[in-house]
């Protein structure tokens, strides 16, 4: 291989590979996943992003992975290597290639006319059909080509293929053959590019998606009831729960609709079981009435909203951060709810645990706002250390059969002990109606006022718990002029942009709250006061978080909104930071 003769200084070992093709070809996404898993197993850090067609069969799908031997924070900018299974893949993505980028393509199907790219044309499908007599082996053949070209050892991929097809022995040999063919084929190619994975730290990490991490955190926190209705991009949470919960003594219910899903969770929570549902925008809209019931009856509940592009059916397989208004303000009447927004795959795991803890401690619904990019991207993360993360359970009345029990007793924190049917002899009705301290219907103005205050007092108590740097970490220049406040899955791109801006000499810092209601007000005020200009990038049209900051804290940030279904790139945010910095 020519690459091995490259001098180390010229080798690029932090690069972005994008693989695109029609899903009818088969294996476009799995080629990328297998390459990613092999790299991660060798100790490389990865960050993936995928885009599916909304159609079930056919339609263009693509997968992207950024690989490095250093921590990877975002999808990166542009594309270094494009693997094009068909002409559409080339045409859609060539705009993101740059001088010196590589394109590997099916030379029978793709016409590459741009001389700025380094081109490796290989007749993928013809080889699979004619040489290997295995048409379905195209993706594994391409995997072999990629491994040979960019420096993944063959044995690691062979292990992976054996694992993937372990239940279908007849396919193992055919796939191994296709893999070796692709790998050996690269020996005939003159390598002209500079992309090559060097050595890694060989630390074993986990590679998981945001949805995987949420499930792991929820199970750790004690979630033993899940109900959901299939919806992209949250369905795999339902599927994981369906697989795991029965073996843990829990129940997973595929409900008949989203109202039934959240209602079942409220019923389970009433019985003392920690419960969660997961959905996306359209389902979240249907759940809102029952969200109010959970808050009114003061029952713990975790609701994951994996946001997608809306409104209506919108773009089901694309991302957007546009459900924030609904999470913060959705529903009739005044009622408190806690809203969390994990910032990365790793954060999903921790915040899922926090979500349950807050729900239990403050007896109210907790919404976890994730999005399509976080749900389905995979990232390498370190093995979590949860030994110091306590699991909280709701306050219950003592065993003494005191006659004084009042389920909704007013208290200093707003929290009152909750009796459980079959466990505590004190009975009560969890009421959708306004009620007095004992839960009896009462519609007097005084009672409505006192009870509304009680319910919102819990939110203030939660704010006291969460207005801390743990919940709103600050990073960047200590005397920054430009301050970026972001939320949710944009953190990696923002962090990378801040690093690059700092390297260019800009004084910039960022704050990334993981809790959006109640806002960590002291952290945000202090941060905003410490900079000259605040910039809020978010993937929505209306600037929903900027609006929330303005309404809650009187901060009027520079808004930077992106729509279109794709996440921010570091370069986009860097550009905006430079623009804002030039005006301070």
């Amino acid at each position: 291989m020519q690459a091995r003769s490259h001098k180390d200084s010229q080798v690029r070992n932090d690069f972005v590979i994008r693989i695109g093709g029609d899903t009818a070809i088969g294996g476009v996404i799995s080629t990328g996943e297998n390459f990613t898993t092999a790299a991660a197993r060798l100790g490389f850090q990865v960050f993936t992003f995928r885009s599916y067609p909304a159609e079930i069969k056919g339609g263009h799908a693509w997968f992207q992975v950024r690989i490095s031997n250093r921590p990877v924070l975002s999808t990166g900018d542009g594309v270094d290597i494009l693997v094009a299974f068909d002409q559409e893949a080339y045409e859609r993505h060539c705009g993101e290639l740059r001088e010196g980028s590589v394109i590997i393509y099916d030379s029978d199907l793709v016409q590459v006319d741009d001389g700025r790219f380094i081109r490796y044309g290989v007749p993928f499908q013809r080889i699979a059909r004619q040489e290997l007599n295995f048409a379905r082996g195209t993706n594994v053949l391409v995997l072999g080509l990629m491994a040979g070209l960019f420096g993944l050892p063959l044995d690691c991929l062979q292990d992976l293929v054996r694992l993937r097809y372990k239940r279908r022995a007849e396919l193992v040999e055919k796939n191994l053959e296709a893999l070796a063919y692709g790998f050996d084929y690269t020996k005939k190619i003159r390598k002209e590019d500079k992309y090559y994975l060097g050595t890694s730290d060989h630390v074993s990490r986990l590679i998981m998606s945001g949805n995987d991490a949420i499930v792991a955190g929820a199970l750790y926190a004690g979630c033993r009831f899940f109900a959901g209705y299939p919806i992209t991009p949250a369905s795999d949470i339902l599927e994981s729960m369906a697989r795991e919960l029965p073996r843990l003594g829990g129940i997973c219910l595929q409900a008949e609709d989203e109202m039934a899903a959240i209602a079942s969770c409220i019923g389970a929570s009433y019985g003392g079981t920690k419960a969660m549902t997961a959905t996306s925008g359209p389902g979240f809209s249907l759940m809102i009435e029952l969200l109010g019931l959970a808050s009114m009856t003061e029952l713990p509940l975790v609701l994951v909203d994996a946001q997608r592009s809306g409104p209506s059916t919108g773009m089901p397989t694309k991302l957007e951060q546009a459900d924030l208004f609904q999470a913060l303000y959705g529903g009739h009447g005044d009622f408190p709810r806690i809203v969390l927004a994990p910032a990365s795959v790793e954060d999903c795991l921790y915040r899922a645990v926090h979500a349950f803890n807050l729900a239990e401690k403050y007896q109210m619904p907790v919404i976890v706002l994730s999005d399509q990019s976080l749900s389905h991207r995979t990232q390498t993360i370190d093995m979590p250390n949860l030994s110091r993360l306590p699991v909280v359970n709701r306050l219950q009345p003592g065993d003494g059969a005191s006659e004084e029990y009042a389920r909704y007793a007013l208290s200093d924190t707003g929290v009152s002990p909750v009796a459980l049917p079959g466990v505590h002899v004190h009975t009560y009705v969890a009421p959708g109606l306004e009620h007095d301290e004992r839960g009896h219907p009462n519609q007097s103005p005084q009672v409505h006022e006192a009870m509304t205050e009680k319910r919102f007092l819990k939110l203030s108590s939660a704010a006291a718990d969460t207005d801390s740097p743990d919940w709103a970490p600050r990073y960047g220049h200590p005397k920054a002029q430009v301050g970026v406040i972001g939320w949710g899955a944009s953190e990696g791109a923002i962090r990378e942009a801040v690093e690059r801006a700092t390297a260019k000499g800009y004084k910039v810092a960022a704050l990334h709250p993981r809790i959006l209601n109640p806002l960590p007000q002291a952290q945000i005020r202090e941060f905003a006061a410490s900079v000259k200009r605040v910039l809020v990038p978010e993937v929505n049209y209306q600037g929903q978080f900027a609006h929330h900051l303005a309404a809650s804290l009187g901060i009027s940030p520079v808004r930077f909104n992106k729509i279109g279904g794709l996440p921010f790139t570091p370069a986009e945010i860097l550009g905006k930071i430079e623009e804002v910095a030039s005006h301070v």
Partner: protein
Amino acid sequence: MSDHPRSTAGGTRTRVAPRPEVVRTAKDYKGEVKPVWCPGCGDFGVLSAVTKALAALQVKPYEVVIVSGIGCSSRMPYFMSTYGLHGVHGRAIPLASGLKLSRPDLTVFAMGGDGDLMSIGAGHLPHVAARNIDITCVMMDNQVYGLTKGQGSPTSPMGHLSKSTPYGMIAKPAKPVLLALTYGATFVARGYSAQPNELSELIVEAVQHKGFSFIQVQSPCTEFYNTYDQYDSLVTDLPEDWDRSDLRAAIDLALTEDKVHLGVFFEEERPVYEIEARKFEEEVQPFDLTSYLRRFA
């Protein structure tokens, strides 16, 4: 008590205690809150029948949960001494399902009116029946929206005049018993609130039945659609020697329009969801995050 009450294995629940320490009477199941229903409302009869049934079963009030929707009849939980969950319009069934699935040790009722169970929440009935979750669903059918003051409902007869149907109801009335039968409910009965003793016997049987039970109760609304005279003449017992295992005969009878039959139309044994869903009960392990995460390595 532990933080997480363990459900009794296999979903068996407290039944008639052989030698109860205290003998409970129907009054012990009545709550402190006095019913707010209009004088003569059929729902009084249902309340009385439910409390009688619970007394016959001698279940502990704190092991019973009445889950309801919204409407006059759905106020039921407040008037009882048991636990209760007064939910959202139409959602009594899924609220009760989540509770029963996670706590099979409890005796769980889902109660509501014809608006709740035949209109806004009608989409839940087929699924709870198909799953055969062991809850007792009591539908108090007054054929009218009482709480909102008299509009026509899905069980109002054709031509019914109300403020929302000033020129007569155009839709054909739903047949709740027929629907429950075809949806696969494993216990289907009809009662009449003016016959609370008979109704309480139906409720006892429904609670004892393992699986989803559905009881339609004709429960007249004195305020907006007083049907007592009509039902007094229409109701009749099931035919003699009724075979409650015969689904086709039950469906035929449920189609009958000239008479309103009271009693248990149908009963069958079928696997119960919350028991089937616990097939790993014996080998349940505590969750170990480190070993769980190994699959992602």
